[in-house]
């Protein structure tokens, strides 16, 4: 373009006339009506219209745009945010490459039955596409994730968008909850519409979750009251804080043991009826086992031996009565196998667990006689002693390798607990390895619903770091102290989320569980080495994160996060945590890199 041409406005400059508005402004009206506090996005031209409406028309508030460096981070943030706050976050992404980046995180949320609200940009009209809009354009954008979202739609008009956006929210939030996708045509976002064209925002009315059939609930209550050793197993049970309250009430009414499998914060960790730390023994003792929203009931009552020739065995008594209460019986898909192995049961109640608890509690209380109350009390005393002994064993186990370097994971958790136990804390990290051998759940006093946010759902690594930031984002307005035990391998998937935490001043203490490798995977390779009798000494190849060691403190510092480490002497840990916590209490993120033992 010549200088003269640049200086001369083209004749067809187009701006909105006074009597016009753009379609994406209406989209923001709808999005605001749904109560989204934030929308996470890595910027993309296919949703530039909505992006602009969010920041200008919407005032960049409710929702506020959160800048992410990867769509997987956007979705994982939304995933954990929901579990801390009970409300979904919105995510904006390109219909092709953005969704491809986001796919694993959407799958995690699907497996975890967590609603994430995904808005995809796409340009449907091929006659209007710019060059980039061809490879960012797609006939059916949501097709690639349709197997693991609950619903999706591609609205063809703004009225259609309004209805589908509200419908999508309702579907996502109705148990079993799951992600949803709305594809937004670029033209629909950008083309002007007359202000005279009045577009109503549909009213949202969430559906009441389904309760169990009353006859089935009565039958379950009779079985529980008559049982000598009933066991309540909860996994994705507590959708709301009231879920914890209800499970405590049921357990105390029966003086029954509880195993909290941890996909949600279901039961206080130090409640005397909590038998989680002696889970296998508790399952073996039980004559009635009730799975409450348990994602893998087969593995709760059976075991699989992972050897060259795999074998299975029943862990529960052969005569134990097995009951399930789950929305998993209401909704299942074919392709992805997250529904797990089928377990034969004696009673299956297809209903939401939390919604069913009030009627179950009422029936149990109604059926409990004085004689049974005395039996319950004796049982409760035995379970209290068993959980006390388990807690004592955990303390003693944690004392081993106390002075060792690298730092033991038990020591890491104990030191962190010492620093936060008098605060209003929330452990926002959660995954198989960041669970650090279960030390936090064995040693800490989890009593509030937001103190434990469950797992990734689908086992997709890379969830931990962005989920921690998402959980911390939810905790921010409540003034809670968010802490994360962050594994090294997980952080390396998308470390840019540390920048997001710094940029948006999200207070979060990340304590690195830096064992310099993907040790779970190393174990699998070693298992193969053993089975094939070829020697184990090369089993680490492909699973180590060393040579060179990664300097996580400098990585964090480069993104504006206060950081210390690497710490190898366990006696240096407490002072470093105190310094980092001082930063977090000022409202900023901080990271302490701790070189740890493997698990």
């Amino acid at each position: 373009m010549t200088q003269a041409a640049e200086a001369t406005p083209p004749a067809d400059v187009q701006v909105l006339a006074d009597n016009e508005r753009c379609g994406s402004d209406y989209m923001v009206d709808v999005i605001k009506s749904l109560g989204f506090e934030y929308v996470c996005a890595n910027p993309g031209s296919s949703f530039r219209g909505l992006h602009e409406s969010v920041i200008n028309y919407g005032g960049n508030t409710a929702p506020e745009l959160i800048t992410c460096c990867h769509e997987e981070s956007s979705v994982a943030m939304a995933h954990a945010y929901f579990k801390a706050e009970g409300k979904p976050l919105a995510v904006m992404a390109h219909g092709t490459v953005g969704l491809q980046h986001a796919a694993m995180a959407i799958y995690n949320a699907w497996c975890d039955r967590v609603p994430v609200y995904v808005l995809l940009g796409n340009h449907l009209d091929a006659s209007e596409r710019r060059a980039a809009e061809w490879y960012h354009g797609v006939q059916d954008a949501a097709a690639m994730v349709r197997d693991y979202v609950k619903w999706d739609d591609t609205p063809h008009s703004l009225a259609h968008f309004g209805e589908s956006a509200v419908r999508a929210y309702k579907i996502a939030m109705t148990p079993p909850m799951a992600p949803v996708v709305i594809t937004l045509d670029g033209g629909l976002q950008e083309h002007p519409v007359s202000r005279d064209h009045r577009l109503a925002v549909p009213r949202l009315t969430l559906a009441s979750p389904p309760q169990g059939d009353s006859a089935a609930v009565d039958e379950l209550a009779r079985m529980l009251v008559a049982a000598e050793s009933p066991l309540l197993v909860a996994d994705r049970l507590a959708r709301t804080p009231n879920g914890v309250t209800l499970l405590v009430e049921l357990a105390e009414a029966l003086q029954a043991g509880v195993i909290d499998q941890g996909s949600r914060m279901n039961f206080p960790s130090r409640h005397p009826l909590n038998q989680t730390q002696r889970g296998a023994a508790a399952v073996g003792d039980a004559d009635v086992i009730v799975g409450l929203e348990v994602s893998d009931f087969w593995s709760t009552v059976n075991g699989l031996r992972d050897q060259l020739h795999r074998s299975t065995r029943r862990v529960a008594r052969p005569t134990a009565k097995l009951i399930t209460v789950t929305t998993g019986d209401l909704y299942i898909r074919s392709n992805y196998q997250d529904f797990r192995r089928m377990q034969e049961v004696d009673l299956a109640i297809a209903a939401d667990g939390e919604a069913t608890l009030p009627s179950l509690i009422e029936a149990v209380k109604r059926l409990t006689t004085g004689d049974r109350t005395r039996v319950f009390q004796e049982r409760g005393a035995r379970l209290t002693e068993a959980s006390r002994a388990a807690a004592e064993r955990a303390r003693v186990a944690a004392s081993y390798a106390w002075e060792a370097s690298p730092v033991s994971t038990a020591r890491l958790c104990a030191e962190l607990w010492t620093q936060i136990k008098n605060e209003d804390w929330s452990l926002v990290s959660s995954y198989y390895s960041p669970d650090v051998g279960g030390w936090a759940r064995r040693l800490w006093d989890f009593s509030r619903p937001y103190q434990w946010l469950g797992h990734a759902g689908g086992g997709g690594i890379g969830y931990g770091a962005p989920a921690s930031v998402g959980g911390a984002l939810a905790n921010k307005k409540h003034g809670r102290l968010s802490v994360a035990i962050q594994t090294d391998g997980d952080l390396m998937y998308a470390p840019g989320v540390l920048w997001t935490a710094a940029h948006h001043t999200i207070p979060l203490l990340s304590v690195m569980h830096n064992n310099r490798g993907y040790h779970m995977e190393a174990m699998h390779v070693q298992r193969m080495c053993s089975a094939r009798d070829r020697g184990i000494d090369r089993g680490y190849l492909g699973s180590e994160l060393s040579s060179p060691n990664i300097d996580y403190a400098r990585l964090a510092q480069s993104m504006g996060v206060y950081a210390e480490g690497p710490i190898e002497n366990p006696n240096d840990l407490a002072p470093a945590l105190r310094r980092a916590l001082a930063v977090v209490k000022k409202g900023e993120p901080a990271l302490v890199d701790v070189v740890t033992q493997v698990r």
Partner: protein
Amino acid sequence: MQRILLALLMLFVVSGSSRTTLAQQPTAKQIEAGAALYRKVGCFQCHVNEGQGGANGPRLGPNPIPLPRFIQYVRKPAGDMPPYSAKVLSERELGDIYAFLQTRKAPPPVNTIPQLAP
């Protein structure tokens, strides 16, 4: 294996001590070799760096099960632990690992650790 049993027998005859006591006096060379092997063949992946155990494997030290049972279990484990044949881990090497485990430091009394107060 023969070498270990012979050594144990000789020590028993000489000192009149119990077998358990004798097994707690491995040489520095054994301990060093055992430490290297413990890591090299991946014991630490489940039983953790100091043999203290974890979510994936039980504690092995500082008071391991008797050596014959230890060897028997490594060869034919009952649970998920992968088997280690004599081809990849000799009995002498297992004895060295055993020596490493025997000499792990006992923890301080748990009630003396403020961070582990109930």
